[in-house]
């Protein structure tokens, strides 16, 4: 029993990372109907920016995390402005290929600056662990999970209860009518990228706290997993992306429990292929929740 509870905590931790990043995929898909394959690398850049502030510039934790988040958000806005906006009228395939290119560019730019893996300094050595009935959870892990959930609640509120959220949803329904409401479509799309990339940056920071050795390719596999999470929840569906991350975390953890650990990624990608064939709109939504 304790073993399963322990695994459940792992599900929450992995799932939180997937969900935070999946939100970026799903939000961009919602407004532009394109898969932003550079998003996993945005997550990676978040971790490296955090390294820059906290280790190279020796800033304290909170300002470092804030600065990394803001800069990652701006990077997201810049990729949209300079790489995707010029292609808005072009076939979606062009934008997707461009996104792949942007991703590789970010990886190699980071690699050029950081030829070797970097180590995030341990910052919370004093923090202890809680244990009960054989289940152990470090306070750091608990904090990461709680903070991720908080960010997702905040985003859910923004999407469902604020005017910006209404505008984002309106764009996903029919972008052509939105200017007639007095809303700048470009402004709202930029805000969407800022939020999605900012959450990716936060995920990068939190991930590097849990796994402090970072490298320029760390975003590739995590990015795929987050993408799979978004597909599980129905891409374009915000709550679906949140749930999808935890579902994938659960599936992966169950795989490790019952099969050799090397089967984890096989299971994840098999799930992706099965979903794309049989339920491309995900497990939660009905078909056409969003106009595609």
């Amino acid at each position, binding site marked *: 029993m304790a073993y399963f509870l322990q695994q459940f905590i792992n599900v929450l931790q992995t799932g939180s990372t997937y969900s935070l990043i999946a939100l970026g995929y799903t939000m961009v898909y919602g407004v532009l109907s394109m898969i932003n394959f550079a998003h996993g690398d945005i997550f990676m850049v978040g971790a490296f920016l955090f390294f820059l502030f906290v280790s190279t510039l020796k800033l304290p934790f909170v300002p470092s995390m804030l600065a990394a988040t803001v800069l990652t958000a701006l990077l997201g806005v810049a990729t949209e402005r300079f790489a995707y906006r010029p292609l808005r009228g072009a076939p979606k395939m062009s934008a997707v290929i461009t996104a792949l290119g942007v991703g590789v560019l970010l990886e190699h730019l980071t690699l050029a600056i950081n030829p070797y893996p970097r180590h995030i300094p341990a910052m919370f050595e004093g923090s202890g662990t809680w244990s009960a009935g054989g289940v152990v959870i470090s306070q750091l892990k608990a904090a990461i999970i709680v903070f991720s959930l908080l960010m997702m609640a905040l985003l859910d509120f923004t999407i469902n209860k604020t005017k910006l959220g209404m505008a984002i*949803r*309106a764009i996903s329904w029919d972008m052509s009518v939105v*200017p007639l*409401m007095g809303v700048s479509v470009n402004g709202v799309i930029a805000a969407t990228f800022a939020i999605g990339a900012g959450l990716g940056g936060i995920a990068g920071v939190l991930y590097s706290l849990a796994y402090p050795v970072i490298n320029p390719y760390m975003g590739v596999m995590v990015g795929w997993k987050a993408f799979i999470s978004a597909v599980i929840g129905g891409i374009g569906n915000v709550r679906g992306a949140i749930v999808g991350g935890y579902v994938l975390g659960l599936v992966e953890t169950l795989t490790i429990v019952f099969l050799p650990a090397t089967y984890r990624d096989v299971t994840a990608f098999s799930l992706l292929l099965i979903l794309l064939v049989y339920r491309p709109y995900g497990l939660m939504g009905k078909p056409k929740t969003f106009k595609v």
Partner: protein
Amino acid sequence: MGERPGEPLLKVTNLTVSYGPIKAVKGVSLEVYRGEVVSLIGANGAGKSSLLRAISGLVPYGGEVAFEGGSLAGVPAHKRVGRGITHVPEGRGIFGNLSVMENLTLATWQRKDKTGIAGDLDRVFTRFPRLRERSGQPGNTLSGGEQQMLAIGRALMANNECMLLDEPSMGLSPLLVEDIFQVIREINAGGVTIVLVEQNANMAILASNRGYVMESGVIALSGSRDELSSDPRVIDAYLGV
């Protein structure tokens, strides 16, 4: 309002709209004065919607659109709403994934006056009680008539001086069409200047002070309500007697 009498609220000069090789509007000039209802009639494909889309800034155009005496060249569509132009598009443009209330709220994006917004919401709900009943429902669950009410309600929430209506009677039963034209008269009586695009030429001409007839991208005829409704060419082509 500080303006010389006789200066048009909306002035379109030699306007052209093209979609690639297709020339949809080929040099249209027209004026709309404060307080008027101006009808714009013409067959399907004549270029009426394209003309409205150019005025509201949704499509690039040649020529000139001026509002309140100032050119709108280079002013993007969303800012034209802030200038005072509201466009209710053909097909209504309801956001089906947003609730009725959210559709109405989104239309106030450019407004900051909270009390004014609340007052307008109350007025919309009083005029269209069905929208109040359905305020929490997604837009795509409304009937065609309710969607048209919502589209007009949304336009009222923008609280602008000039309203462009593109075929508001399209697809509605005769009873609802009567209702829509009554609403248009009320809105105009409230001081809003209206450009009314219609295929329902008979009712549109009767509801307007003046009108223009478009044929394949150009203005073929124009005149007052009485001139148009008695013009043999109009009767022949559009009033189908």
